[in-house]
């Protein structure tokens, strides 16, 4: 509709056609080689993926998709960096002349293609954009994502590796030198109390969620609605108690727990954990309740409901998503807490998963790394997944006041 003036058709520069043809040929060559050398298993998968990738870029360049250009650019930058590293760290220091020459040639070729992808004609074909900003962004994201997610990737690798492979320093740790195994998982669930720890954590988590909701929902509503300006001030005061860390309170609380006779009982955690969930939950829910128009409740009260009735029958049902946020928040905090759990509870069978794994999966000085890593991964991923779904709401709770938008 908007394209009343026909744009002149974009011409594909000849170099680009040649480049994509070369890459398509390269993809075919990789596939052919995979078939000829009869590679199987991981090798075949790896080669096929490579071939697909190269073919994809070739097609993208042909069709003038800018993302293909940026991706190729990004790969070339990585390649140059890798080759230079290899050149200076290895080839030159070990006087490997042939390898050094090869590396220099590769760097030269890559640099030439980089330069070509930025020439005026090519830029014009892709809509005038420079490839650098997106490439730098992709590089930054790749490096950070790699570093931040690496421990979890590494847990996954260790989970499925044979012990012989895991503890052989001469083996490349990034590869499966022996067939993957489920032995560690079997050990974890049959020879250790891990399943019990997961159950303990789930039980304490549910109990804490219930208590948090009972305490925080009415309090947040009262502070948001009923007490005017003082509500706001009390809300901030409650939020500040969230800043008091367990590492300050665990010593006196250990005495309190002992006096109440709750030592080594999961009830001690059920009693204490709401102190980390309630303040922040009140704060989150206050913001939530304030966004519900007062007129709705007033209308309900005209219809004969009491204030409390309106709260139960009207406000709570509309606030399901806020309440759900508090549920997830409280549950994940319970799985993350460490200080109270390690202080109050010592028997092996009653551990929370966050303490049991580091303290009780180690026998004497022997670390069963495969099982340990499996234990970490299994407990981390679901928690991380649900927390991630609701993260934006928590962040809104942290940033209230500093961001208006």
């Amino acid at each position, binding site marked *: 509709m908007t394209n009343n003036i026909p744009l002149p058709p974009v011409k594909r520069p000849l170099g680009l056609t040649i480049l994509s043809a070369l890459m398509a040929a390269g993809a075919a060559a990789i596939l052919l080689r995979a078939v000829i050398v009869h590679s199987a298993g991981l090798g075949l998968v790896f080669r096929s993926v490579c071939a697909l990738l190269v073919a994809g870029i070739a097609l993208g360049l042909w069709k003038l998709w800018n993302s293909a250009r940026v991706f190729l650019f990004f790969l070339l930058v990585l390649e140059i960096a890798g080759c230079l590293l290899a050149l200076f760290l290895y080839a030159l220091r070990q006087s490997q002349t042939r390898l050094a020459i090869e590396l220099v040639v590769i760097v030269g070729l890559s640099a030439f293609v980089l330069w070509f992808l930025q020439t005026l004609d090519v830029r014009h074909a892709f809509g005038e954009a420079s490839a650098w900003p997106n490439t730098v962004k992709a590089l930054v994201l790749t490096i950070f994502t790699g570093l931040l997610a690496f421990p979890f990737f590494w847990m996954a690798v260790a989970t499925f590796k044979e012990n012989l492979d895991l503890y052989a320093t001469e083996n490349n740790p990034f590869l499966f030198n022996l067939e993957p195994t489920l032995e560690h998982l079997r050990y974890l669930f049959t020879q250790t109390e891990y399943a019990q720890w997961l159950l303990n954590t789930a039980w304490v988590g549910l109990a804490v969620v219930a208590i948090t909701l009972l305490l925080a929902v009415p309090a947040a509503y009262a502070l948001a609605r009923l007490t005017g300006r003082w509500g706001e001030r009390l809300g901030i005061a409650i939020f500040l108690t969230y800043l008091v860390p367990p590492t300050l309170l665990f010593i006196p609380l250990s005495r309190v727990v002992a006096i109440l006779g709750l030592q080594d009982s999961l009830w001690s955690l059920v009693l204490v954990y709401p102190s980390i969930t309630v303040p922040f939950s009140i704060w989150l829910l206050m913001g939530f309740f304030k966004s519900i128009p007062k007129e709705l409740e007033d209308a309900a009260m005209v219809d004969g409901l009491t204030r409390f009735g309106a709260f139960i029958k009207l406000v709570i049902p509309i606030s399901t998503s806020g309440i759900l946020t508090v549920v997830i928040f409280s549950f994940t905090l319970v799985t993350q807490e460490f200080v109270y759990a390690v*202080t109050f509870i010592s028997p092996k069978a009653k551990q929370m998963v966050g303490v049991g794994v580091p303290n009780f999966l180690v026998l004497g000085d022997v670390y069963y790394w495969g099982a*340990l890593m499996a234990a970490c991964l299994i407990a981390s991923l679901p928690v991380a997944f649900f927390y991630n779904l609701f993260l934006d709401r928590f962040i809104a709770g942290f940033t209230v*006041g500093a961001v208006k938008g």
Partner: protein
Amino acid sequence: MAVATGKIKSMGAAKSPLLGFAMFSPAILYIVLVIGLPFVMAVFYAFSDARIGSNELHFVGLENFRSIIQSPSFQKSLQNSIVFTIASQIIVMVCANILAIALEKPFRGRGLVRFLILLPWVAPVSLGTIGWKWILDSIYSVITWVLVWLHLVKPFDTPMWLGEPRLAMTSVVLVHCWRLIPFSTVILLAGRTAIPKEIPEAAAIDGAGFWRTTFQINLPMMKPIIAVALLFGTIFTFTDMTVVYILTAGGPFDSTQTLPSFAFATGITGSDLAAGAAVSVFLVPVLVLIAYLMLRMAHRAEMA
């Protein structure tokens, strides 16, 4: 009609103080009992001779403080707590700002990238830290393997990541950074999206490049949100004991001991509740300072 609702609303408000009080008092009571009371007890214990296994309590004045201040372990812990917090916060702020810029505009696969970046923050700390313990293992460390493979270190003279004081301290700082970068990134991201789009656009039309827009427009406008990320980051690092406890247990030779982990070692492991409480009371000045700064920010936001 409008008048009628107004009247009813005011009637409701006039009737409700008792109900309001009944609704928020359980939570307040709980907070006072489980946060307020232990807080006072912590300070009180610091001036007493409380020990695990004995119910007697005597007031001993500044005795605990006198003895811990002279202990070299305590001095090292205090120094480490400050150094670890400042070093990690500097690294976190730089990296989180870079990441927030890279993540700001939507692109395909952003959801997945965000999930992967957030993993260190959203997964349980103690479990993520064990992952690092394996990565930094003295024999099977993957970092060592890569360094040997690159011929940067000799196979029989590999670094002991958690066994040498300097390397252990660096490792603790980096694990703290690893854990806090995701948190600060999402906070800064929330701040960036709140900047009115017209301002950077106008600057771009006036010929301001990427660096000028970043340093002269975006960063100054994000000051309050950077402060929020910094204050929470400081609290989370300064009061954390999990990373140190799992990674090094304070060793080698107390070189990575921090105030919280030292408080645990003396108060719980060493059964000397009073000394442990005295150590943890040293966290209070920092907490008070941060609470004050936050209140000031909240006040400013209210005024604006």
